[in-house]
């Protein structure tokens, strides 16, 4: 699983430059962390739940994004951490949807024509 266009960590003491190119107002002194300093959610619980309960590939990818959130936050790349957090959130929602649809398909199509092979 690769990084999707990770911006490099901002230089120490400087402000982050958004990819759009607009010059941000210079922040005096030091970097103010976005959002009042709360690290973004990494949705690790959802990643683990989808790994062991329903959607293995989505779960494994979610663990990668969760690790990216924490790694980028710790290295000062707060915008990157927020971006990884958004991806982790999308994957968590995707696993929930896939799990729900799978359960519905099972209940509608498989249960009525049940054979007795295997179990989870």
């Amino acid at each position, binding site marked *: 699983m690769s990084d999707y266009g990770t911006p490099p960590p901002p230089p120490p003491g400087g402000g982050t430059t958004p990819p759009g190119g607009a010059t941000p107002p210079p922040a005096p002194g030091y970097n103010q962390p976005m959002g009042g300093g709360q*690290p973004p959610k990494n949705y690790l619980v959802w990643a683990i739940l989808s790994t*062991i309960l329903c959607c293995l590939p989505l779960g494994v990818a979610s663990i990668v994004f969760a*690790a990216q959130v924490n790694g980028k936050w710790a290295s000062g790349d707060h915008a990157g951490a927020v971006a990884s957090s958004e991806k982790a959130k999308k994957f968590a929602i995707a696993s929930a949807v896939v799990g729900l649809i799978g359960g519905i398909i099972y209940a509608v199509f498989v249960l009525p024509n049940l054979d007795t092979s295997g179990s989870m």
Partner: protein
Amino acid sequence: MTIVNAAPAPTTRGWRGVALPAATAAGAVAAVAFVGAVDPNQAGHYPTCPFLAATGYWCPGCGSLRAIHALAHLDVATALARNPFTVLTVVGFAVAFVVWVRRRWLGQPRTYVAPAWLLYSLLAGVLAFWVLRNVPGWTWLSPA
């Protein structure tokens, strides 16, 4: 120019703060009670793991329902035999839940960030578990 501090997010604490953890706990108890009552050892109660059905190999989650069923009946040995990773996960979630409730009760912001290497270790552990439980001779890791 002055440094503008972001206004601190309004914190909820006390009983209102722990409403979300309480709802989560209620959902978890309901789910565990269901899996405890509807036996996953009997075919037809739950869908077969799609990965197992398609490939014939165990995935890291195979046996998790049977492990939760065993845990619901306080049978830790059987739970470990079905899926040891699930048992570890339950322990980890329980610890995280206690930390979460305490933080919400006190209305504190989340400040701790687990080191990334720990999460990459978790990833490596899951992948290793996935491979090893399919290796002949390592069946103690598999539900079989």
